[in-house]
């Protein structure tokens, strides 16, 4: 009798379409959720709404025009994309980038990391209900955008690099402003920590949510803070140092439990490490040329290479094939960290509640411009 009574109460699965137009999917991401009551039974992620065919487009652009396209992939961390692309081409053409340019590149990458993490913290906390952190995080991000505007004239799509080095030297007094920003940012991070880290409700909404073990994380291809949150020490800045990271002293924060709270702590600690790197980079800024020996018309020799750097979202890799004759790359491929991190979403949200889905999308820190390319 009990089983028959059980059928009587079996509620039908509710299929809910979350996105592509939804306040907390950080862009045009569509998640089809099959709910049993509140619990997510299964889900599948549908992307492609923002596919602009950047890879196909760049096969018809010459090498310097592509820097613009890399800005528009992960529009929240454009400088890192630029640095990644230019370094891949420099590796193809075997150009030696002067030390001063490498130092400025390191500083810009870390500034970009702080800006991207500010946006992540603001939207992640807003999704879980704490509206105030959003405004605080964006106040700091504003300072960074001003620094970038002063350096390369734009606030979002910087076009901040050239193959072989920097487009122009840093403006006078820019480094003092960066150091001043670092001191402000240091105490602001403590302010975020005060608001959220020991907040009972925040703990309850993030501890033990979306747990992924180290093996699962590596297998599914997570990278960056989501991977380090599960305890895997993989950071391209340490494993394959590029720009001037080999001369910088910093440590890589590692989580233990692999849940949303650990990913939050890892990123919060990365704020502080980035400030540390920026200080070393700006204080130790060497004099010297800002561009290496670059031929007027860039034509890398025939060959292909894959070069990965550490973007705020994870490992961004460029696989570029040049045929040595034409001024366009023959094949331009980007390994987007958000695309690979998003792949873990169905596995993470299985068995969680609807409210956790929102927290987990924020915890993976996904930017749809990079996912859809």
């Amino acid at each position, binding site marked *: 009798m009990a089983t028959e009574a059980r059928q009587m109460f079996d509620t039908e699965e509710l299929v809910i379409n979350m996105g592509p137009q939804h306040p907390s999917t950080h862009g045009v991401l569509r998640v089809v959720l099959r709910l049993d009551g509140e619990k997510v039974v299964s889900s599948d992620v549908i992307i*492609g709404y923002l596919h602009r065919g950047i890879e196909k487009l760049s096969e018809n652009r010459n090498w310097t025009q592509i820097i613009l396209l890399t800005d528009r992939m992960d529009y929240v961390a454009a400088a890192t994309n630029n640095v990644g692309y230019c370094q891949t081409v420099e590796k193809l053409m075997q150009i030696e980038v002067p030390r001063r340019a490498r130092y400025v590149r390191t500083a810009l990458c870390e500034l970009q990391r702080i800006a991207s993490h500010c946006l992540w913290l603001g939207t992640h906390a807003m999704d879980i209900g704490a509206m105030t952190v959003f405004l605080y995080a964006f106040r700091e991000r504003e300072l960074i955008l001003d620094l970038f505007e002063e350096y390369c004239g734009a606030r979002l799509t910087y076009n901040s690099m050239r193959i072989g080095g920097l487009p122009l030297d840093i403006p006078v007094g820019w480094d003092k402003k960066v150091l001043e920003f670092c001191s402000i940012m240091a105490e602001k991070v403590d302010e975020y920590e005060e608001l959220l880290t020991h907040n009972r409700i925040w703990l309850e909404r993030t501890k033990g949510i979306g747990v992924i073990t180290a093996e699962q994380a590596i297998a599914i291809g997570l990278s960056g803070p989501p991977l380090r949150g599960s305890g895997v020490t993989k950071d391209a800045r340490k494993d394959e140092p590029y720009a001037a990271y080999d001369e910088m002293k910093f440590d890589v924060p590692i989580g233990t439990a692999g849940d949303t709270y650990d990913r939050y702590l890892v990123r919060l600690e990365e704020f502080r490490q980035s400030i540390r790197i920026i200080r070393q980079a700006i204080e130790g800024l060497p004099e010297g040329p800002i561009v290496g020996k670059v031929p007027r018309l860039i034509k890398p020799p025939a060959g292909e290479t894959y070069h990965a750097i550490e973007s705020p979202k994870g490992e961004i890799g460029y696989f570029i094939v040049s045929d040595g*004759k034409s001024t366009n790359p023959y094949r331009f491929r980007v390994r987007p960290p958000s695309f690979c991190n998003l792949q873990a979403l169905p596995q993470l949200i299985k068995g969680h509640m609807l409210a956790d889905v929102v927290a987990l999308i924020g915890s993976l820190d996904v930017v749809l411009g990079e996912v859809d390319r």
Partner: protein
Amino acid sequence: MTEEPKEPTAAGDKPASEAAAPAAPAAPTPAAPAAATPAAPKAAAPAAAAKPPAAPHDNKPAPPSGPTDPPPPAGAQIPACITALQAAVPGAVEHVSFYIGDWTMIVPATKLLEAGRFLREAPAAAFDFCSDVTASDWPSRAQRFDVIYCLYSTRLRHRVRLKVRAAEAEPVPSVSGIWPAANWLEREVYDLFGVNITGHPNLTRILMPDDWQGHPQRKDYPLEGPGELLMENPLDWLKLKQAREEAEIE
């Protein structure tokens, strides 16, 4: 370097340029000799047969016949993982190449799964992180696609690239069993290149709309999109468009 049997109609210059490449030292040389005739689009190419052979705008030199896989310089010591793989899985490694610090192995499609499993389990290799799966299209070559697997080891911190050559409809086994990360990446390769990947849990389009015709990232796919020309015949396209409008209305 085993020579694959060439189709007779292939442009005559193929073996010549192949021979030229390996002889040259690692320093790059212009691969395609000037005499190459513009590669007429192959009959197999999806482009509408009726389309007149669109001669690429004439100043562009003929597309290269294949990726340059320079053999390792004499002095370079082949890394332990590759030698271990050659020993463990005979015939798995067709060609090893080294270029500006990256090791690449060309693996036949039949041996791909075995090689992949070995590279993941072997202590000398321990490639547990499949960072990227992508493809590149060389229309003038018989086995037109190069499916590229970029592997990384989180423990030993070294990288290697596997390459599998596949013709248009030639099956390439899916490695999502070995590295689940490859699931979406392979779906993208199928979606944008049309490589026939077999044994994939859910091989559907990922970036393009589901009812899209053709594979956009092939070299012979026009940059400005399908337009009426590419459809086998424009009537299908019109019917499709009306059907889609009705779907929106009701």
